[in-house]
């Protein structure tokens, strides 16, 4: 039994190298781990260790040989006592196993020459029939969602800075410590990176953490765990290890807090496969979608907004109001133009629609609510009806969520468009502090009205 020793590669890109030196001669016995030769590339010199034991029967490639192809036979190892003179060297390289380079069938790319998304209109009223409706702030709705889910499932816990004894920096976790105790509501030190990782690790073992970031600006410290640990592990483990976790907190511009406290992260997280991204506007959506997020077996980034925490909306009573993640809501019916927005962007869209109505322009408003997965069928259905679209977003313009919506409309509803899709976004600048400059940096209702007039030619 002879064994062929092959020219090794130092990296997946190396194709050939120099056999610099033999450290064993023909007839020498070789133990596993013995260094038998040195090979060189333009980058490095490496030692070749024996992986089998025996006697070095034949040196096929003498030292000093340049351009030795990877996987060609460089020597023959014989078993102890074998007649080495009888060894014949096969002339061909033994790299017959090319399965690593096997051609894989190409998977269809996502290029769509023809529309691939069919239209599916969004619904407007999802409240249970006969439910009692009451007015509630977004803040109360979020608190109730967490409390109801904590009552239902003892594996749900809340963690974050000031969430327990202080009752939340923005009072979203008000009363949770009193009801559930310190074992379910954890005040953390100011260490976003560390506690996000701890929460993700606990979710690997089946707990359902709700991690509050005091604002999403601080979650940049933790973004490695949100993306590399929470979003990718299911895929990297071949489906073994899910991560049922919610990362939530206020996102985007508050008021007069400057550049480092005013960023909208929707576009960032919406870029990542393995995450779900929710950005609600109304209190009912905040409640129904946060409950869905907590029940979801996947990591969900739940983007709130400080400005709308105190706004009140109709919410159905009852502790089982859960909304589907990934479905847009028809906020207002119209015929002349589609306004697509979400989160605080909706405040500009709603304000503009009221003003436009007085001008005789009927705007339909689609509230996306979920950024990923995005309900493009609902947008397409509306655009097929109105033939015009303006997308409203508070975040920056480049590579924005609005850019994605525009591209999707172009790919899936191009033939229905009577005007280009227009984006109304925050300005392409870090958020200034001065009151007048801050105002200029944010989109306005007037911006939306102007955009609608442009696409309707009115």
């Amino acid at each position: 039994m002879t064994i062929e020793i092959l020219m090794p590669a130092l990296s997946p890109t190396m194709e050939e190298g120099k056999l610099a030196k033999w450290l064993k001669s023909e007839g020498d016995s070789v133990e596993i781990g013995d260094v038998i030769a040195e090979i060189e590339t333009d980058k490095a010199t490496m030692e070749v260790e024996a992986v089998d034991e025996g006697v070095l029967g034949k040196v096929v490639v003498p030292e000093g040989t340049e351009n030795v192809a990877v996987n060609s036979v460089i020597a023959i190892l014989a078993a102890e006592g074998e007649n080495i003179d009888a060894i014949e060297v096969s002339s061909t390289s033994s790299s017959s196993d090319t399965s690593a380079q096997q051609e894989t069938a190409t998977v269809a790319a996502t290029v769509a020459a023809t529309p691939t998304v069919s239209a599916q209109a969004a619904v407007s009223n999802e409240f249970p029939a006969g439910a009692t409706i009451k007015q509630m702030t977004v803040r109360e709705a979020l608190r109730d969602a967490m409390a109801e889910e904590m009552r239902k499932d003892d594996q749900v816990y809340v963690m974050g800075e000031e969430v327990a004894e202080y009752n939340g920096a923005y009072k979203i976790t008000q009363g949770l410590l009193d009801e559930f105790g310190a074992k379910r509501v954890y005040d953390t030190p100011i260490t976003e990176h560390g506690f996000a990782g701890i929460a993700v690790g606990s979710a690997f073992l089946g707990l359902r953490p709700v991690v509050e970031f005091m604002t999403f600006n601080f979650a940049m410290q933790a973004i490695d765990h949100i993306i590399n640990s929470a979003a990718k592990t299911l895929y990297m483990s071949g489906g073994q290890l899910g991560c049922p976790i919610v990362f939530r907190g206020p996102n985007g511009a508050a008021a007069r807090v400057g550049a480092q406290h005013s960023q909208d992260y929707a576009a960032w997280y919406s870029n990542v496969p393995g995450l779900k991204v929710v950005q609600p506007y109304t209190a009912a959506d905040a409640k129904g979608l946060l409950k869905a997020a907590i029940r979801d077996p996947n990591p969900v980034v739940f983007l709130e907004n400080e400005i709308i925490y105190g706004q009140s909306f109709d919410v159905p009573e009852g502790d089982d109001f859960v909304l589907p993640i990934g479905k847009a809501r028809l906020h207002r019916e119209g015929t002349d133009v589609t306004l697509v927005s979400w989160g605080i962007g909706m405040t500009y869209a709603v304000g503009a629609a009221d003003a436009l109505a007085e001008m005789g322009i009927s705007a339909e408003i689609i509230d996306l609510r979920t950024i990923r997965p995005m309900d493009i069928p609902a947008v397409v259905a509306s655009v097929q009806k109105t033939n015009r679209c303006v997308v409203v977003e508070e975040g920056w313009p480049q590579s924005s969520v609005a850019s994605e919506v525009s591209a999707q409309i172009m790919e899936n509803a191009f033939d229905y468009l009577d005007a280009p899709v227009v984006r109304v976004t925050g300005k392409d600048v870090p958020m200034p502090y001065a009151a007048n400059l801050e105002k200029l940096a944010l989109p306005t209702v007037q911006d939306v009205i102007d955009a609608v007039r442009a696409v309707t030619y009115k």
Partner: protein
Amino acid sequence: MGARTTKAKPTPSQASAKKTGDNLTIAEFTQEQDLKAYHDMLLIRRFEEKAGQLYGMGLIGGFCHLYIGQEAVVTGMQMAQVEGDQVITAYRDHGHMLACGMEANGVMAELTGREGGYSRGKGGSMHMFSKEKNFFGGHGIVGAQISLGTGLAFANHYNENGKVSVTYMGDGASNQGQVYESFNMAKLWSLPVVYVIENNKYGMGTSVARHSSNTNLSERGKSFDIPGEQVDGMDVRAMYAAAERALDYARSGNGPYILEAVTYRYRGHSMSDPAKYRAKEEVQKMKGERDPIDMVKERIIANGWKTEEELKQVDKDIREVVAESAEFAKTNPEPDPSELYTDILIDA
């Protein structure tokens, strides 16, 4: 456990270091323990040698970080763990997986990116998991596994299940900021976690003396009041004895414990590292005098438990298992193209 004991022998490099483990005795292994340690360590070594060979043949892609030289660390730890304790580490993870009882076939097939791999070919060398064997990765971001491992301990604590999270890191990772964020919370909340710092003397090509202000890494928990000790990571008995102390401490509700396993990696940082930053003599000295497998082997023969010939047979059997895993890893098909779009989200 055997009745005989010997004095703990610190490795030459830190003979003068102050250690919590000072004056502790290391119990001799029983015949059964020594034979198990020999088998488990040799399996890792032969597996890694084969992986190195397959990498050289172009069958394993990307990065490949071998564990050769460090076998006593995971083997000693694993022998002291109880069923259900979790293990998590960074990217030099093949040895940890085999120690956890994961099959050589599944690990090797993941290295070659085949459907029979533990992650069905979608993770590779650095990202492999087995929920069934309580192995939680396999993480490619240096330091991430330390917060995650602390999170496993958080879940143990939350559910009061009596399990301990064994969280490994290298000497290089021990400088990451999230290590100290995790230490702080682990102690604050008394989480059952044993941090094992595998000090193999180099963070890639930078020696400990060049990357750490205090080279006694067992003291890294000092400001959090976390006890730590330096352990001879080349002696599987020392690792086992320290592991028992650390696991017992963490399991009893005292919170985290740090073990600095002083060890050595024979190969470069990864397959494409020629390791020019250290002297050949240094490597030869460790291989010749401190090899973890040779030390067990000599003990087994000296005690008359097995002959050299009988141990050769053990080696041969292991090499057959490894050769079979290589064959499986070469012939097992690549994942079906439809797998590209699976395992991204779980159906809600």
